[in-house]
């Protein structure tokens, strides 16, 4: 067990009925790196990340976070260990404003006469500070998320995760529904966060994204790990070959 790893997963397996979604998968996320997780549809990417986030309990395998063995029974456990996962669709409350979204689950409150009142002013101030620290371009924390673009919503979700002091960020296809410009802004934010010391796992079908901002890329196929490539010495073709054909020699 090496301390340089923010996350280490060993031999993770998960079966859904007749589908073996994951079969003895290993994963190492180095501290402060951006690891791409790629593979075809149904390769098991989301399921693997859900086991790391405690929302799917694996049938077998072990998970270490910052060198400590972790027993993750639900996302709360994972969050307590500094993890945050951002799903594409469930990330935000569209009917609430930015600040309410950033502070979801850890609202500032004041108790008066036994009633818990929201400390809105403090939440507005702090979310404004957080947005500017992350260089997120949202003009006011009072904006309703429903009026925002898909990219801005993702950023609100990221701000929320970072506001929770997350040190390990998992993003499941965050750019899938975004236009080129918005996707690029979000990718910029991810490199910025990585440079601030956050370890990131990015699931995506856009391999070129990983190759442009990532450090390493891990390929899954049929619930099995096909290999991990260094972005520096890999080409798009190398990654695509692994995704489609799997590992050349049939071993790890």
């Amino acid at each position: 067990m090496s301390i340089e790893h923010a996350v280490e997963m060993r031999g993770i397996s998960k079966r859904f009925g007749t589908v073996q979604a994951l079969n003895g998968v290993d994963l190492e996320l180095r501290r402060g790196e951006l690891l791409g997780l790629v593979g075809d549809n149904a390769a098991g990417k989301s399921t693997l990340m859900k086991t790391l986030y405690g929302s799917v309990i694996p049938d077998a395998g072990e998970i270490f976070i910052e060198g400590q063995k972790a027993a993750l029974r639900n996302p709360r456990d994972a969050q307590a260990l500094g993890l945050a996962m951002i799903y594409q669709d469930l990330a935000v409350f569209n009917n609430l404003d930015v600040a309410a979204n950033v502070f979801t689950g850890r609202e500032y409150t004041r108790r008066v006469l036994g009633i818990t009142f929201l400390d809105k002013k403090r939440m507005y101030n702090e979310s404004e500070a957080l947005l500017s620290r992350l260089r997120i371009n949202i003009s006011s924390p009072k904006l309703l998320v429903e009026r925002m673009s898909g990219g801005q919503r993702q950023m609100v979700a990221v701000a929320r995760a970072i506001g929770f002091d997350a040190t390990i960020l998992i993003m499941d296809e965050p750019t899938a529904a975004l236009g080129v410009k918005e996707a690029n802004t979000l990718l910029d934010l991810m490199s910025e966060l990585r440079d601030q010391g956050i370890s990131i796992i990015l699931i995506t079908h856009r391999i070129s994204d990983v190759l442009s901002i990532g450090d390493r890329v891990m390929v899954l196929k049929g619930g099995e790990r096909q290999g991990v490539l260094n972005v520096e010495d890999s080409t798009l073709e190398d990654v695509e070959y692994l995704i489609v054909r799997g590992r050349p020699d049939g071993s790890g």
Partner: protein
Amino acid sequence: MTANQTPPTRVESARARVRELMAPRESGVFLALVIFFVVMYTVSPIFRRPFNLTTILRQISVTSIVAMGQTLVIVSGAFDLSQGSIAGLAAMVTAKLWKNAGLDPPIAIIGGLGVGVLCGFLNGVLAARFRLHPIVMTLATGAVFLGVNFYITRGESIIGLPDGLTWLGKGLIGPVPALIVLMFIVAFLMHILLTRTLFGLRVRMIGGNLKASQDVGMNVERIRVGIFTLSGFLSALGGIVLLGRVGNALPQIGQGLLFPVVTAAIVGGTLLTGGVGSMAGTLIGAAIMGIARNSLVVLQLNIYLQDIVQGMLVVVALLIDQFRRGELNWRIILGRDR
């Protein structure tokens, strides 16, 4: 926001208050209310008599009080169709506690409110713990509450209620009818609850995105129970106020309540899909309904138009709602879409 360095003036912050209270959703209905009011005020001398205006407020007060509870429920993404039956049961229990158990009116009222709380709690548990669909479930519990009401009263009215039981519906606070004061107090408190408290935020969260609320790890069950319990309480309060409005305790009290209540919430801009709605909006919705009804009277139109007008207002409100959410546009209506 960086340009805004000078502290806001009084007028500015007052404006911000108003804006917050009247989010864009409400401003539309508010405008409708103002126009409606001004038109009626101009055309009808009877309408603008202070007595008539007070009458409108008295007429909408019970609807509004109960509708505040319904708004909370709808914002959370559910419905409470048992409100009318809870109102009736609570009213009758209150009257019976006074008549048959010989309790003092205030104690009897507390007993009646307690019945409402209990009914609401039961709804909440069925919705939250047993995960029953709120619409059908409250329809069913509503039938049960109504049945219990008629069972214990054998369908008989209780007449000759003491002042203590009718004061909420009939009494005055200075020159102002007590029930109007009560309506505004309930509206104010419910507004604070929905917009300023953690509970209110949770309600909006469950209604806006249930899955995400669960992921956050909030206690959705407890919040649901709280919502339905409060709805039951306000229904009971409405029922007890009705005792005074009607003058006698009739078992069928509250039976006509549900439709105007839901209408007030919908006309007031509460999104049926949950997550969005305000107490100010619901109050405005109730006022529009009240003026509509009153107009028929003062313009000496056939009062039976009331149901037609009310029904049509709901349809219009639903249409506006669909437009706002982008579910509907002229292309679809004209059949040009697919």
